[in-house]
Structure formats: C-alpha cells, structure tokens
C-alpha cells in the first residue's frame, strides 16, 4: 500500500453530562423534557448576586469517571470564570476549571485495524452547561432549563489519526462512562457533545500543521463525517500549495460539509480567573481510594473473563460487554444455565433485535434472565424444538412469565414419542406418493418436503430429527 501523502492529527474535547438529579450550582432539577424555563432560579439564570453552591455528587462523579479512565486525581482543584458574551450565558462567564482541573492525564485503550492503541487524555474538568438557543425569523429564544447542568469536559491528547479512530474512541469512552454509572450518555438528549481539533501534515514530518476546530458535534456519525470531510479538504488545500487558516468551523449535516464560522481571535481571550464565589475542592486520599475500590470491572477485563469463564468466542464477548446492562443480563442468565453459548446466542440475535425494533432497554425487558435460562434448558433436553422455542421467547418477551408453565399451558412441548411420530409419517407417505417415489429415485429434496408435511400435521411440534429418522427407516423398507 502507498503511504498517504498527508497524515491527520486529531484531538477531541468531549462534553459528558453527569447523571445528577439537580444542577451543578443550584437545586433546580436537571430535565431534558421539561417545558422551557420551568427548571430555573436566580443562580442558573445568572442574576447578579446569586451565589453558586457546588453539587457534591457532580464532583464525585467526575472523579469516578477519572478513575475509570486512569487519570491522576488532583487532591486540590478549583473553579474559574471563563468570560464570553453570548445569550446562552447571561452572567457573561461560564463557571469552569482552568489550571487546576479535577483529573489530569489518563487514557483510553481502543481497538484499531492495526491492533490496540492508547489514546492519552490531557485532563477532565467540571463545568456548567449553558442555555439552549432557538432561532426564529426575527429573534432568538433562550431556554435556561439546561443552563447549570453539570458537564465533564474530557480532553484528549492529539493522538487520534483517523475518523475511524475518533469513532472508536467515542464508542469506547461511552461504554466506560456507562460502566462507571456517571452519565446516561444519551446522545439524542445531548448527553455527549464533541468539539474536534484537526490538522494535517506531510507524512514523515514531525511538526504539526495548522489546526481547524469543529464545534458542537452531537452525534458520533457527525464527528466521523466532519473529520472525513475535513481531512479531504485540508489535504486538498495543502496539495494545492495553499495554507490552512486557524479557525472554528461548523459541520452542516445536511450538506455534509464544514463551513468557516469567521470568529474573531479576540473572542477566544476568555480572561480566566478564579471564581471568588466558590471555594477550592480538596479530596482526601482515603476518599479517592474508596471510590477506586468501588470501580466496576472495566469492559476490556470483562470481555477477557467472558471468554475464559463462559467459553464464549471473543466476538460474542465483545458484543455483550459493549453495553453494561446487556453484559449484566447475560451473566445473570448464564450463571443459571449450563449452556452459556446458547444464552449469548439468544441475547445477540432475538433479544437485541426485538429490543432495537421496540427501542426498549434490556433493563426493563419482561423476559427475566431466569426465564431465558429455563427456556434454553427446555431446548437442550428436547422438550422444545427451535421453532417453538422462538414462539415461547416472543411470548415471554411480550408478556413475561416462565417458559415451562407456558409450554404446558399452550401444549407446545415437542412430540418425541415414536408412536405419534410414526403415525404422522404414515399419513404423510400415504398422502404424497409422488414425493415418496422421488425420494426413492434419490431426490433428497423430497425427504425435506415430507418432513415439512409431518411438522405441519403436528403444528410444528414434532422433533424434526426423529421425524427424519422415522421417514428414512420407513422408506428404506
């Protein structure tokens, strides 16, 4: 393969909304769906003289996230004012952390085509979200419900080299955040938003090129699309002998292009200074150690364990651990079953498909892990054939309950006694002389047809292997 002419250097800033019930500096509820301006107070509206008081849980969650991402937790940290003028922030500064964030360093291990890589982190700081603007014909509207929601900003080192790596990083980060329980990571509700920095340089040259920043991407697809476009655009400019302008750009998803936002450099002079309204945060080593102790098993470790403990293929383990709730469900069911691979198969196929169709969550699903384990037992001891098992699964998925009772109630148990099967086989042979002669002439398709006839006569409940066997021995006479 030919070396690419230009290589990309990409860094991400990911805003992750913390899953607290109240806001960062006031007691208003954090609510995505509330009617506009109904979860607001003097603090989050930025009234002069209103005093912010820090939400303890937001600090705890940021530290827990930092521990999950191998960061160094800072024993001393503080909050600063970041000055800027925009109608989403009427006090004209955002409370953020400048030079003493809660977490420094850390990294995220991701899978790439060339093996695993570590994307190093620079820092994680805690800040308040801003209001939401809506644009009308003559004016813009401002809704302050979101203002003051606690946000973590996770900043990477410029370690990412392609749009696919950026996507892989975000997916892995999301899984880690869901595992640590600090955010719901709901992209539709804007729980994760991303700014990207990207520059290009000729392959083999050390010094980084001039970067462009693309702001406020709220889907992973958007990040990927914007990066693919920007990599091409910058390479084209450079190949043509042009220069990249340092600027902020906006991704237009409908057009599939980025556009310059022409922001003056002045606007980036945020004049940070310590917020006199907020006292520093000092974390005791004991406190940090306790949180470290409570960290859940990381998805990577869990994947390895699933392969060893449940003898799953690595692929299955990867699919299951990608979502903590799915992995938890699997583990509960597999511990009750003697057939872990079957548990994995049911979850990866029927369960995830039906959940996706209904946009449901596995945590709310009516078929409980014990029921799935019991269903697999009924298939393994040949009480149910695979068609009936699917029917039972759907019924349990929709209405709950336990499979053994349902099988009894609906008479779904597989017909395995030879007398009944032989009777059906006789009938099928008598009714289909053409197929019988075809079979005798060596057409195997005819046998399948006859088995199908028996299955139909028994409403799909016969054991197909036994039917085949009975047919073969009867027609061999």
């Amino acid at each position, binding site marked *: 393969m030919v070396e690419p002419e230009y290589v990309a250097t990409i860094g991400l800033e990911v805003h992750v909304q913390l899953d607290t019930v*109240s806001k960062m500096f006031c007691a208003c*509820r954090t609510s995505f769906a509330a009617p506009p301006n109904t*979860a607001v107070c003097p603090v989050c509206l930025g009234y002069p003289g209103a005093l912010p008081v820090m939400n303890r849980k937001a*600090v705890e969650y940021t530290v827990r996230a930092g521990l999950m991402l191998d960061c160094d937790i800072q024993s001393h940290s503080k909050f600063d004012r970041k000055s800027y003028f*925009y109608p989403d922030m009427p006090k004209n500064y955002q409370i953020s952390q400048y030079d003493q964030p809660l977490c420094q360093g850390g990294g995220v291990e991701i899978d790439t085509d060339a093996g695993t890589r570590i994307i190093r982190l620079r820092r994680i700081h805690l800040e308040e979200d801003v209001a939401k603007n809506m*644009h009308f014909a003559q004016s813009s*509207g401002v809704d302050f419900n979101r203002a003051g929601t606690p946000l973590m900003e996770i900043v990477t080192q410029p370690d990412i080299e392609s749009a696919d790596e950026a996507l892989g990083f975000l997916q892995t980060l999301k899984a880690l955040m869901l595992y640590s329980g600090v955010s719901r990571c709901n992209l539709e509700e804007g729980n994760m938003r991303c700014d990207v920095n990207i520059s290009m340089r000729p392959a083999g040259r050390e010094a980084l090129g001039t970067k462009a920043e693309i702001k406020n991407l709220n889907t992973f697809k958007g990040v990927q699309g914007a990066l693919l476009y920007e990599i091409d655009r910058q390479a084209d400019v450079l190949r043509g002998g042009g220069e990249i302008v340092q600027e902020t750009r906006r991704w237009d998803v409908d057009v599939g292009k980025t556009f310059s936002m022409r922001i003056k450099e002045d606007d980036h*002079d945020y004049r940070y200074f310590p917020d006199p309204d907020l006292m520093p945060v000092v974390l005791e080593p004991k406190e940090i150690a306790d949180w470290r102790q409570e960290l859940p098993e990381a998805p990577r470790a869990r994947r390895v364990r699933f392969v060893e403990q449940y003898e799953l293929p690595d692929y299955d383990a990867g699919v299951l651990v990608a979502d903590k709730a799915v992995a938890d469900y699997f583990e509960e069911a597999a511990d009750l079953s003697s057939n872990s691979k079957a548990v994995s198969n049911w979850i990866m196929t029927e369960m995830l498909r039906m959940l996706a169709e209904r946009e449901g969550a596995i945590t709310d699903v009516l078929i409980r892990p014990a029921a799935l384990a019991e269903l697999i037992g009924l298939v393994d001891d040949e009480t149910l054939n695979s068609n009936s098992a699917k029917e039972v699964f759907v019924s349990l998925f929709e209405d709950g309950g336990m499979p053994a009772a349902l099988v009894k109630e609906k008479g779904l148990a597989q017909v395995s006694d030879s007398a009944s099967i032989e009777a059906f086989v006789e009938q099928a042979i008598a009714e289909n002389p053409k197929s019988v002669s075809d079979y005798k002439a060596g057409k195997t398709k005819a046998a399948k047809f006859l088995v199908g006839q028996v299955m139909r006569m028994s409403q799909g409940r016969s054991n197909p292997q036994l039917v085949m066997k009975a047919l073969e021995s009867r027609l061999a006479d």
Partner: protein
Amino acid sequence: MTEKKDNEALDVAYVARLARLELADHEIRDFQGQLEDIVGYVRKIQELDVSGVEPTAHPAPVVNVFREDVVGPSLKREDVLNNAPLHDEDQFLVPKIVE
C-alpha cells in the same frame, strides 16, 4: 525599561473590546492613565519576597463547600419571564443570533 514593557501589556482598547465597552478616544486615554496608576499600586507587591507563600485565590481557609444532590423548588416561569425586556409565552427573546 520594565515599566515600559508592563505598560504595553495594558491595552485599554483591547480590554474594552473584550468587555463589549464602547469607549471614545479621550476615554481610552483617561482610563489608560487611571488603570496604569492602579496597576502600578498593585505592582508594589512585587517588591516583597513572596517565594515562601502559596498562591491562593481565597483569603479564607475554607474548602469543600458542597450541597447534596437534592432537587429544590424553581421559580415560576411567569415571574421569570416578566423580568425580561422581551419574551414570548415560554422563552426569553433576544436579538436574532447570527452564526
């Protein structure tokens, strides 16, 4: 020489622009002089040996002022919107923001 360099660092026109303040030329000149006096006064601290003093943002030795993550009452929307010069039934209205 140092004095000159520090004075250059104080660009009143630039600071005013950042703060969205519209200043006339004579105001810029006036404030330049006044602000330089203030900065010069504060600069006296550089004459002291503070090498053994930790930088601090707060005079009070208080840390970890937290509230628990508990929801409290918010304001009534009607009252909130009535404080604004312009609003519709559920939002504040501002001059149209152009990106």
